[in-house]
């Protein structure tokens, strides 16, 4: 019943206050990595083009790979390096809440919400 078109996806990106980019990947050959998914990259492009606040998020175990993610990002998306990534620990609620608070605080600092 919901519109599943690419336009609908663009609509979501451009009409959200924050785009949370959950960036994952297990190395250069990982075809399931975020940087290999055309729609994921397109969502980032739409967000940057629109000026939507993009917040990169990684799993705790991928924290050490943030540098790799930035290095392997397409040239037009290298600007993601200027954004402070937030790592999320999904194994402990207290740590999870810390990550969640960081996401919200960063959005607040950017005056994302009216």
């Amino acid at each position, binding site marked *: 019943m*919901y*519109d*599943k*078109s690419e*336009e*609908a*996806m663009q*609509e*979501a*990106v451009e*009409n*959200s*206050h*924050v*785009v*949370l*980019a*959950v*960036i*994952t*990947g297990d190395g250069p050959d*990982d*075809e*399931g*990595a*975020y940087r*290999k*998914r055309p*729609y*994921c990259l397109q*969502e*980032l492009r739409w*967000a940057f083009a629109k000026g939507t606040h993009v917040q990169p*998020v990684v*799993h705790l*175990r*991928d924290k050490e790979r943030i540098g790799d993610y930035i290095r392997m990002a397409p040239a037009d998306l290298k600007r993601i390096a200027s954004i402070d990534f937030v790592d*999320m620990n*999904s194994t402990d609620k207290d740590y*999870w*809440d810390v990550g*969640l*608070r960081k*996401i*919200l*605080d960063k*959005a*607040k600092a950017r005056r994302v*919400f*009216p």
Partner: protein
Amino acid sequence: MFDLEGDQIEAYVEHALRALNHVMTTFGSLELHDRVAIVVPDERFAAAFRAPLADALLAQFPSRPFTLVSAQEAAASALPSAGERGKEGEWLVLDSIAAMDGLERLIIIAVGLDAVIDEGSGSSTLETRSRLYRALTRAHMMAVVVNEFLPGGWLEFLGHVSLKKDEKKFNLKDEMENKIKADAADGVMSWRLLLEKDAAQKVQKLAKQRQASKGNLSNHAAKTESKPDPAGDKPGESTPKAESKPGDKPKNVAQSVWDTSGNETAKASGWPVFNPIQPDQPEPTPKPPKLGTGVPPKLQPRAYALNAPGAWHFMISYAQGSDRGSMLAQMLRSSLMELGYTVWLDVRRSLGSNLRDLNERSDVRCRYHR
């Protein structure tokens, strides 16, 4: 309204006399013969009230004799002139509200009709409301309420209103605005009465809930030791439209219907259970999220959006081929939604699906949004 201390009948006699005195002061030399009815809740109260009141009337107004008569006696008699009445003096009708049904008088003094809303059976709660309505609508010109202050009673709101000081005339515009609220309250009650077989129980439940909230608010008020807002006495400064916040005490509303200058109660501090004039007791606002920036801002839905509502707080972008990505996206969505945020999440792959399956079904999309 007064705080009951000591004998109930004595207290009601004392304050009924004050009410009558107010009537006499207000109308000056107007003869009150058969123009005033003192309405009490029932025959039992009337029987206990009659003799002490008669004695007190004689003591209070020795030069102006009054005779207490029943509604039936008054209705069965012609209106003799002052000269024809002789020593009998002016008649004051004293009877139960049931005996006054269908009868009216220029002035009604409603004595002891209120009751706590959540006490007794549901039918008695509604009966109380009924007799108050019937008593007040017996009056052509003036109704005077004499009642002990009952927290949780139908008349509790009278502890929070005052007559506009510089504008004692009835203000139609202001009162129409107030009436809207009163009608709304009536509407709610009527709806309950008509559509629910267990109307009384529902009313009691509502009252209990509000009293529970009131208790919380009163506790808070006691801690802050805040005093009633005197600004409420100033016309225009305290209006029924004023917004209240949880923790606020009810403000004194200036209006042009009820003159409560004769009130002698110190108990009116909490939010009335029934309040046809003031704004409703503020509902406790949702607790702010423990995390982040506070209450999520309200979003404006977009017309003609491909997916309703067309605006979201968060859009989560993640790789469909990553179990970690899927898991994080789902967890983020849940956490954010728990905090009240709306989240657009494109679930392209359920957890556990393998990449090959994903690639084969990469066109399959299912969007969850809120």
